[in-house]
């Protein structure tokens, strides 16, 4: 099973370009239509479980808005 991960999107930087959304292999990002950023965009955000922490979204983000976290391998192994 892939390690689990998560992302945090800096809503001051995100411009809702959707490049992270179309490139996420797990298809777990969407624009959050219920929120609006200081610059007037609906920010990208995780909308369901399944993020693997692969980092692809951060590679394509033109705003460097995404911080990517992944569960530590050693913990996973010791829990297994």
């Amino acid at each position: 099973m892939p390690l689990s991960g998560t992302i945090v999107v800096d809503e001051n930087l995100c411009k809702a370009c959707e490049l992270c959304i179309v490139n996420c292999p797990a298809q777990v990002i969407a624009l959050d239509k219920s929120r609006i950023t200081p610059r007037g965009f609906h920010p990208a955000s995780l909308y369901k479980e399944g993020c693997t922490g692969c980092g692809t979204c951060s590679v394509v983000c033109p705003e460097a808005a995404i911080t990517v976290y992944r569960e530590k391998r050693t913990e996973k192994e010791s829990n297994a």
Partner: protein
Amino acid sequence: MTIHLEDMQVIYQHPESLLNVNTHYCPGCTHGVAHRLVAEVIDEMNLRNDCIGVASVGCSVFAYNYFDFDFIQSPHGRAPAMATGVKRVHPDKVVLTYQGDGDMISIGTAEITHAAARGENITVIFINNANYGMTGGQMAPTTLPGQKTTSSPKGRDVEQAGYPIRASEMLATLDGAGYIARRSLHDPKNIRLAKKAIRTAFETQVRGLGFSMVELLSICPTNWHLNPAASTRWLEENMLPYYPLGDYKVHPALKDLKF
């Protein structure tokens, strides 16, 4: 599932050499990706206090507001001339220019060509988005045959406007060039390859191996009248065949480089 961020490892975070500020770039514009990659490489090589950038004229004119290291701004097309002076006065610093295609291979053709011919030990980040972005999407020397722009509304007519310039191939013929490569920013795999090329270009300069340039094929959603995702597909389908990716000049001393 409760996630505790403090128990997790950080896979990616905002590079230190990039200020945490909003840019004026349009949503999806890959000028932002190019900035990020340059900043990541400067961080990796620990060069932030030893780096001087020269911004050009074009959408990236305000690059000095976004990078967290010393930066100046040059007249249109003259960044390589300014970088030449800066590097000669500060030979111990890493000096880069950041230029668009209108800037570098139109009004600035003489400066870039002679900087490469002289083997100036500078690094050029060259953004090819097939038009003049800042001024409203006019035809650039890199505009593709048949491509519609505001100054070629019926499509670039090569009988009248001539053919696009392949800057990497052209500059690679000059003996002063140590490293010349073309990469693309349209998908994750190619962005990762672009970063390696930028790293190689800075290594070229640090080792004193001559002029280095990375040409980055880049999207301009606003003037292409396509959304960012559709722009990446347009780039892939139209620019890649005309502008093949690859290394056009690699100094022999770079061949064993590993990182």
